[in-house]
């Protein structure tokens, strides 16, 4: 089977993808600089034949070139997220340098590149649901939350420019709200992570804004399935795909659902004003249109929100207990 290079492999999507690739019999070179994660999610594979973990920075071009040797596909998932608490510099530079570094390695090694973009690129576009041909609406430049979307739009253009210039096949995947076992349990992992964490600890769930903003949440197995389809389909070359569950839910509904599934009593909520983030703008509604992935890749999300959340809560309960037991 083919050798696959996965960047951001210790992260949530990366680690789950590694498991699925190993199950299919692929050799996996898993790269992560562990800046945002530990090896917790991939330790189980350390003894698996065909699995190799390398702690390197995706921005290190020499390292990426070396690791990409003999690779059929590079799945580039390493990225820095929305600068909600930190500064925008890392988001901008790490995302663009990392992608360039991957593209340069792919060019030398004749590898295919499938990389993570984000639903955030649609930004404030009021026309729902978002299809891949929709316009990308960014807010004011001095609102730093847009740095993430801008960095990913740049990544998409770089990828298509490399494809045009050097003929390397690229595919961009715009993920919509992934969750599931292995997710980051802080804000970095998304609202469901912090809600579950709060519910398990019987603390108030912190809702940003009025909670009426809507999102769609995609169970990890469905995301991994979508990536695997895109990685090996000739139809995916040169394309952008939305990968997400089309079920729309408000943040407030999500919080209440999680509280109920966690088996708690009266929900505890705490509304946090956006003003605490400085100049911030949230995206009001975000739902994918996925007929392109359906038609070209046969992608169909299978795990509903309630079922997925049950599994996620169970997992998060177990790791929380474990870490508490350890501390």
């Amino acid at each position, binding site marked *: 089977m083919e050798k696959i290079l996965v960047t951001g492999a210790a992260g949530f999507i990366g680690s789950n993808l590694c498991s699925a690739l190993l199950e299919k019999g692929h050799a996996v070179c898993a790269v992560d600089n562990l800046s945002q994660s530990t090896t917790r999610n991939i330790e189980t594979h350390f003894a698996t034949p065909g699995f190799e973990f390398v702690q390197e920075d995706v921005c290190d071009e020499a390292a990426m070139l070396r690791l990409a040797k003999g690779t059929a596909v590079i799945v580039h998932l390493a990225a820095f997220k929305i600068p909600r608490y930190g500064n925008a510099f890392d988001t901008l530079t790490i995302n663009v340098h990392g992608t360039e570094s991957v593209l340069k390695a792919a060019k030398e090694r004749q590898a295919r590149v499938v990389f993570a973009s984000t639903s955030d690129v649609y930004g404030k576009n009021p026309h729902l649901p978002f299809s891949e041909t929709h316009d990308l609406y960014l807010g004011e430049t001095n609102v730093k939350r847009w740095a993430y979307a*801008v960095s990913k739009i*740049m990544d998409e253009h770089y990828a*298509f420019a490399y494809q045009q210039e050097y003929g390397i096949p690229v595919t961009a995947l715009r993920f919509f709200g992934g969750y599931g076992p292995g997710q980051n349990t802080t804000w970095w992992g998304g609202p469901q992570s912090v809600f579950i964490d709060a519910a398990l600890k019987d603390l108030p769930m912190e809702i940003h804004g009025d909670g009426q903003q809507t999102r769609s949440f995609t169970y990890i197995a469905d995301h991994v399935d979508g990536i695997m389809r895109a990685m090996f389909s000739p139809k995916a070359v040169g394309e952008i795909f939305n990968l997400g569950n089309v079920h729309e839910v408000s943040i407030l509904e999500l919080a209440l659902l999680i509280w109920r599934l966690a088996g708690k009593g009266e929900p505890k909520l705490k509304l946090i004003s956006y003003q605490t983030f400085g100049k911030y703008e949230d995206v009001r509604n975000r739902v994918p249109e996925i007929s392109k992935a359906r038609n070209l890749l046969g992608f169909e999300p299978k795990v509903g929100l309630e079922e997925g959340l049950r599994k996620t809560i169970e997992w998060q309960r177990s790791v929380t207990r474990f870490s508490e037991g350890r501390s």
Partner: protein
Amino acid sequence: MRKKVLITGVAGLIGSHLAKALLDRGHDVVGVDDLSLGVRANIEPHFGSDRFRFCEDSILDPVKMNEACEGVSVIFHFAAQKIPRYGGYLKTLDVNVRGTEILLEGARRANARLIFASTDDVYGKGMEASFTEESPLVLGESRVHRWGAAASKIYGEHLCFAYAEKYGVPVAIIRYSGVYGPTHHISKLSGAQDLFIAAALSDRPIPIHGDGSQTRPFTYISDAIEATLRVFETPYADGEVINVGASAQISIVNLAYLIWRLAGVQKKPQLRFVPYTDFSRLYEDPLHRRVDVSKANYLLGYRSSVDLEEGMRLQVLWFRNNLESIRALNPEFFQEEENPGT
């Protein structure tokens, strides 16, 4: 107060005129240009000044740029690649993204302020009647190459703010709209007026993209320079994004008529309509673009003083007076069957 400044893209239209204005005011100017788009003729008049130093270097060379930044207190980062309508997609991204990063790094090391040239192209497909600095920036599909240029400029703006946030580099961002004026270099990328004048003066039909009903703002260079100097001289412009342009706009077909008349051609205007699909299937052109410049008016006290007709009259005059050298430097614009650009 006499300052030492750096201008990248100094041999381009805005860069060369800005260099002149700053030298006239007694400042020292280091000019960087790799002459890939700009031309030496635009800055030749400054070579006589001992306060002007020219570096024929690429902004993608970090060592050369760090040298060029040494001792300067203000950097005007104007070197850029425009919309990749004719290829060079990856180069556009590299120059605009990597180049801006290198100059910001230079500003950080030199403790200099950086004034970044952005463009109204960042408003993209926005549907507002008039774009203010708070308007959303609307890009089309990432698979359409022309949006790569706008994306790279938005990225540059964000990177400016990120350097301000992380390292305290003072930055100001100017979004220029349709600046035109005397230059020895005609580019397919610098607006329709020069192509139209070249056609009218050589008695050829004026090439129009699409049906010519798309409207664009046009800003005469002296107005753009006046606004730029005000940003330069106004300390509280830091941290601001400012639209600089004319509030006037005109449809491309009316611009052709205007130029035909100003060129004094004595027969009925000849227009040649070119479908967009002729040169790239991956091209999308916004239909209208009107830019609100009231922030520049109120914050900087800037008023444009050269109206469209006067500016175009000056431009036609410039072409007429320099026709031989312009023809020699840009022969492709004076031949028949040239694939045009607007």
